[in-house]
Structures are given as structure tokens and as C-alpha cells.
């Protein structure tokens, strides 16, 4: 396949993914908007007003970047894992496997689809947050780079989960028992300065902490970790997971007999 044909194949996968999640918007776009609005109301307004400042900002301003990032992470991951596993389940993945699309284009197409949903939700949550607080961007490049890379990272993660999953339970295990705890403990709602020394050290092993803080630095200009370390960590994770995903695809793990 020449470059133009590869691009056509890539855009076909991406547009198909975007069509899929916009067609079922009550399942994909609406729930995170509702959930995040509730977070803003309950944690930001009701409880947040009693908490006072966190990291030098009012509590609502502090949690907004974390909540946006949480929405981006969960939706990027969920889009790819559910879409690709459904294709496996319905066997429509065979449409791709019999075609000459290279594995890296398949991965790129699904990751872009996941990013489209993750970033789309990110925009929706950001717009909703404006009803509760004023967002002053400290560093737009940092915001954009962090959110794009994080979305890409969790899209690749979702893809690997979909390849390895053999039943629907396997699709929900990682988001429920890994992703959600790591996100909640990743500094979305608090600064790790509040934790005792030991738990601060433990928190530093949580990759999501770096993403949330990198993004928070982009918006507020404050972070529990060095923002460039955050970017380095995200890039390293992307490289490792992409390598694993391509290896699994080449072996036909979960998709070829």
C-alpha cells in the first residue's frame, strides 16, 4: 500500500470510530458530562467551600484540572477497549485482518479514535467547569501536550486490554480495579503534600499522578512533581505500551487462531 492508501485506511478507521461514539452519544458523551457536573457541584461547590485552599488555590480551581484529566483518561481508555473488543466479539475485526492494513495503522487508527473521544470529553468538561470557576491557563503548550499524550497513552492501554480480553468481564476489570483507584489516588482531589512521607513516596509510583500534575501545572502553574518529568514519564509509557501493542498484534494475540 502506498502512502495515500495507508492514509485512506487510517482515516477510514478514525472516522468509523468517531461515527461509532457519536452515534451512541447517550452512552459515551452524556454520562461523563453528568458525572463531572456532579463532581463540580458536590466536591467543588458544597464541600470545597469548607475545605478552603489547596496548593495555593481555592479547592474548585485545584480539582478542575484533575477532573478534566480523569475524564480524558477514562474515556480514551473506554473507547478503544470497548470498540475493539466489540469488534472481536462480533468478529468484524476480521474485516481488518483480511485487508492489507498494516498493524501500526490499525493501532494508530484506534488510538486516534480513542483520543477523539477522550479529548472531546475533555473539551465538554472544560466548558462545564467554566460555569463553576474561572480557568486561567498558565501554559497552553503544556496543557495541550500533556492532555494529548495522556489521551494517547490510555488509548494504547485500552487497545492492549481489548487484545488480551476474552470476555466482557475482562474489559471492565482494568478500569474498575486499576484505573479508577490510580486516578483517585493520583492527586485529582488533593495535593500529595497532605500525605505522610511514606505515602508520598508510594504516590510517586503512580503514573497518573504525573499526568494530573503535568496538566495542573499547565493550567495553574503548580505541581507536586516536575512537569518535565511528567512529560518524560508519559512519553516513556507510550513507547513501552506501543511496543507491547504492536508485538501482540504481530503475534495475532486474541485475534488470530
Amino acid at each position, binding site marked *: 500500500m502506498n502512502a495515500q*492508501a495507508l492514509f485512506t485506511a487510517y482515516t477510514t478507521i478514525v472516522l468509523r470510530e468517531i461515527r461509532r461514539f457519536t452515534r451512541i452519544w447517550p452512552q459515551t458523551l452524556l454520562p461523563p458530562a453528568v458525572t463531572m457536573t456532579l463532581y463540580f457541584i458536590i466536591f467543588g461547590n458544597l464541600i470545597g467551600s469548607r475545605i478552603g485552599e489547596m496548593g495555593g488555590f481555592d479547592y474548585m480551581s485545584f480539582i478542575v484540572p484533575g477532573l478534566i484529566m480523569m475524564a480524558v483518561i477514562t474515556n480514551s481508555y473506554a473507547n478503544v477497549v470497548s470498540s475493539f473488543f466489540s469488534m472481536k466479539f*462480533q468478529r468484524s475485526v*476480521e474485516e481488518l485482518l*483480511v485487508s492489507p492494513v498494516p498493524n501500526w495503522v490499525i493501532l494508530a487508527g484506534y488510538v486516534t479514535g480513542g483520543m477523539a473521544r477522550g479529548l472531546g470529553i475533555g473539551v465538554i468538561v472544560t466548558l462545564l467547569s467554566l460555569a463553576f470557576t474561572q480557568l486561567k491557563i498558565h501554559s497552553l503548550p503544556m496543557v495541550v501536550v500533556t492532555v494529548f499524550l495522556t489521551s494517547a497513552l490510555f488509548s494504547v492501554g485500552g487497545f492492549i486490554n481489548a487484545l488480551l480480553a476474552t470476555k466482557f468481564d475482562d474489559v471492565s476489570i482494568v478500569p474498575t480495579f486499576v484505573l479508577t483507584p490510580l486516578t483517585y489516588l493520583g492527586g485529582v482531589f488533593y495535593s500529595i503534600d497532605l500525605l505522610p512521607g511514606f505515602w508520598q513516596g508510594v504516590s510517586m509510583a503512580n503514573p497518573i499522578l504525573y499526568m494530573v500534575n503535568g496538566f495542573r501545572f499547565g493550567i495553574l502553574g503548580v505541581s507536586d512533581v516536575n512537569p518535565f518529568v511528567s512529560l518524560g514519564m508519559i512519553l516513556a509509557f507510550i513507547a513501552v505500551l506501543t511496543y507491547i501493542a504492536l508485538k501482540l498484534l504481530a503475534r495475532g494475540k486474541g485475534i488470530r487462531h
Partner: protein
Amino acid sequence: MTNALEIEGLTKTYGSGFEALKGIDLKVAQGDFFALLGPNGAGKSTTLGIVCSLVTKSAGKVSVFGCDIDTNLSDAKLNLGVVPQEFNFNQFEKVFDIVTIQAGYYGIPLKEAAVSAEKYLKKLGLWDKRNTPARMLSGGMKRRLMIARALVHEPKLLILDEPTAGVDIELRRSMWSFLEEMNRQGTTIILTTHYLEEAEALCRNIAIIDHGRIVRNTSKRELLQQLSLETFLLDTELALDAAPELEGFSCRLDDEGVLEVDVHKGQALNDVFIQLEQQRVKVVSMRTKANRLEELFIRMVEHSAPEGETKTEGRA
């Protein structure tokens, strides 16, 4: 001329240790209409699955129009269209989208894909259903949708795995006509089928596979010439109480007015009629009892069963 498909020493052992293919050699010429026959579990779908990259091979070589799937998989796939045995499209997508998306995977821009999709959806009688979600189609329509999808990139080799399974007779005949037309226009076609009359009606060359080995690979004509016995059903004018005695022929009463007569190769059918006339049995019509290829197939597959293993045991 390069063969449309060449398979050499193909083996497949699944993770469970089951040896599905034990060294298959097969050549399908360009322009051929080829049938790959065999009982359930014989290795037909595994063979075709390897050709289509849905199954990974253990050893051996496969090339499609000279493109080796190990070294030039992309070009091999460009030459290939696949119609699987089971429905494998997104049930929630619309008919037109399913076909054009498949074209996109082959690098065909949407504008061209739309033209090709229209052509094949019209030919297969699905154009009126183009905006219908696939799940709303009947079984026959879903099969035709898979054919349209497989053809949208104009492959030179079309592989159909049980294309008419569960399709009514009228639709099956119309699908046959369509496939014959495709073959006349130059598309090489390989099909697996359980309807042996389908293979007999359509194919020029036939390979029979059993227990992971090719037990026969020849032309349909040569295969049918091996048939040493044919059974005819004769409808008699009057109902009979018992089968008449026919010298040199085995004759049974199938029904009150239907005689079943075995005629061996070299015997004259005329002798049957002469003897029946002598016994004042008037025949009003005649037909062959079973599909000829079916009889041959059963005989070959029975002979290929490993010692001490019945066909039923072999598939357990």
C-alpha cells in the same frame, strides 16, 4: 502463468496440540472455479483461514498470485476477497457503510468506494437496503452483503466459505448465477460447501480434504468418471406390491410407485426398460437418486479415515 493460489507443505497445529493440517499441497490456476470439499473438521476452514491471514500457519508456504504471505502479505491480501462462513460484520452499521468501510481498509478513497459499492449492491439486489442496519437484513441478504463487501476492491481471487449455507433454493440459484458470471469475467473462485450439488454445478476442479490431508485433487470430470454405480428412481404408472426381479440389476421398491435401480458402469440402462416392459411395468418418468458427487465424496472420505476410527468418532 502464475497460479492464483499455491500451497506447499502447509501444516497447522493448534495450541491444544490438535493437528488440523498435516502437509497440504494445492494449486489453483487463474480463472478456475475450484471447490475444496471435506467433512466438518477436515481442515477446509483452517486452510482458507491461513490464506486469508485469520489463522497463523505452523509451517509451509502460501502464495496468492505469486505473492508469498510471509514476505509480501500486503500484495497477497490486495488480490484476495473473502466471504466467511459466519456473519462477521458490525450488525449496527448500515449496509452501504459496511461495504465502503471495507474498501477504505484497502486504501480506496470514499468516492471510488461508493461507486464500487453501488455496483455490487445493485448486482446482489441490496441497493434498496443500503441505508438499513445490517442486523435488520434476512439471512440471505446478510450472505449477499458479505459477497458485496468481499468484491468491493475487485479482487482477482474470491474465497467463499460455505456461501449458501442456510439460503433457500431460489436465492442459492441466483447466487450461483452471480458467481458464474464473476468467474466468466475472470475472477478465480475457491469455495467450500456442504452442498455437493453446488460444487458439481459450479466447479471445474475439486480437492477433497479429510483429517488434514488432501485425499483427492482433480477435475470434476475425472472425478465423476470414477463413479462406478448410479442409482435411478423410476416412477411407475401403477403402484406395485413388490419390486420386480431384474436380471443383472439390483432393484428395490422405494415407494408404492417408485422403483430404485442400481446401474453399474458398463451396464445398459435400456436393459432395465426391456425387462420392465416384459414384466408389464410401465415407467412414466425417471431421475437419478442422489447427487453423484455426494456418493463419491462419501466413499473417498470413508476410505481416508484412519484405521479403527469411524467418521463419527473422528469428529468427536
